């Protein structure tokens, strides 16, 4: 070992896992043989002693006790804030989920209405309503009011699998007011029969038949009609 190697290693003589510690015997042997390096080693040992004394003297240094109290308060505050944040997040998540369910429900509802409306189109007029309930008021009002407004407001339902137009006054009816107190008859009509009632239909074959409700006056004369579609929801 030469002096330069000694200077590389002598700081680590007491530090396990280092090259200096591994070569400790050689380093000490060189220090005994070389007076200059021996003095270096003596000074280094003195420095180690001073540093150890300083370390031992200041090893008990601690931050003031109030700092622990302050930090514990901060920890409690942070924990409470985190808890509040968690609750707010949960509420926000629930609100979002509820809003999504509402939107989904509305969208499904509108979709069903749209499907019901378009499904009845093949056998009825474009103004066929999805609400298929039938009642006497419909009959009366449809007989009394104009055809256009009734078609737009048509809301009648013959059953779960049926859709119907609003009642339309027949062109050849004598007096719409005579429909008051009339009866409704469910019939199946062919194209010629519809034509005979003043409802010419072009998009059906002569042999096809379409269901319809006809309002008959007290004397049995047809006064109004509505077309029934059964196929859309089947």
């Amino acid at each position, binding site marked *: 070992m030469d002096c330069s190697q000694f200077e590389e290693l002598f700081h680590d003589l007491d530090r396990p896992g280092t090259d200096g510690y591994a070569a400790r015997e050689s380093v000490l042997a060189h220090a005994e043989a070389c007076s200059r390096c021996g003095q270096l080693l003596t*000074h280094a040992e003195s420095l180690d002693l001073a540093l150890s004394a300083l370390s031992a003297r200041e090893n008990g*240094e*601690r*931050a003031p006790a109030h700092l622990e109290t302050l930090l514990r308060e901060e920890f409690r505050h942070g924990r409470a804030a985190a808890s509040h944040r968690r609750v707010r997040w949960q509420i926000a998540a629930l609100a979002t989920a509820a809003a999504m369910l509402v939107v989904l429900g509305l969208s499904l509802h509108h979709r069903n209405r749209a499907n019901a409306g378009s499904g009845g189109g093949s056998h009825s007029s474009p103004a066929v309503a999805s609400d298929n309930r039938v009642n006497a008021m419909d009959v009366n009002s449809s007989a009394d009011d104009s055809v256009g407004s009734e078609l737009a407001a048509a809301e009648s339902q013959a059953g779960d699998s049926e859709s119907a137009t609003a009642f339309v006054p027949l062109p050849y009816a004598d007096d719409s007011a005579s429909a008051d107190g009339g009866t409704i008859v469910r019939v199946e009509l062919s194209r010629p029969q519809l034509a005979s009632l003043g409802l010419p239909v072009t998009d059906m074959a002569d042999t096809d038949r379409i269901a319809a409700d006809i309002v008959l006056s007290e004397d049995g004369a047809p006064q109004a009609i509505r077309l029934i579609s059964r196929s859309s929801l089947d």
Partner: protein
Amino acid sequence: MEMTQKNDLADDRLLRRMLAGDEDAFTDLYRRKHPAIYRFALHMSGNPALAEDVTQEVFMALVREPGRFDPTRGSLGAFLFGIARNHLKKRWEQERRLVPIASDSDESDDFAAFAASGNGNASIPASSFDDLDSLDTIGRVRRAISTLPENYREVVVLCELEEMSYEEAAAALSCPVGTVRSRLHRARTILLEKLREAHTARRASALGK
């Protein structure tokens, strides 16, 4: 090394409990970790009030942002020392009233100037520092440490005063082990020189009397 691993496991357990909201775990963790952080800040700054502030900031950061600690990147101790160093640097930048900080580029210049002044160790006289363990000398060693460039001072504090291994200090300082070793050797050489000068001056003064 085995002790270090045990400490890391204990820290990890306490940290998990702390993250689950266990205040006692936080208190235990603080009591385990804060003395080294406080002493590091104290040795680095020489200012008890600043050391207290830095310690507070370190543990505030742990309370407020525990997710910043990534165990795959090092131990909790290294993470806390890293925060402490950053706060010290910020404070030094804000308050120029403390010990001047040497940048990395200053490191080689300081050492080169020191080496050129007398080739480091070669200039140390034959007399030994036989009173180095006295209270007076301990004070001189502390002052000598405080005048070291920052990069040297922190390795002395960690490796000599906190008795960390090179590996532990390297993790705390986020630098290679070889860098820690070379900085410590240079720091010790500078300390030897400073103490020799003080010793020579004291002897001269005694002879003059």
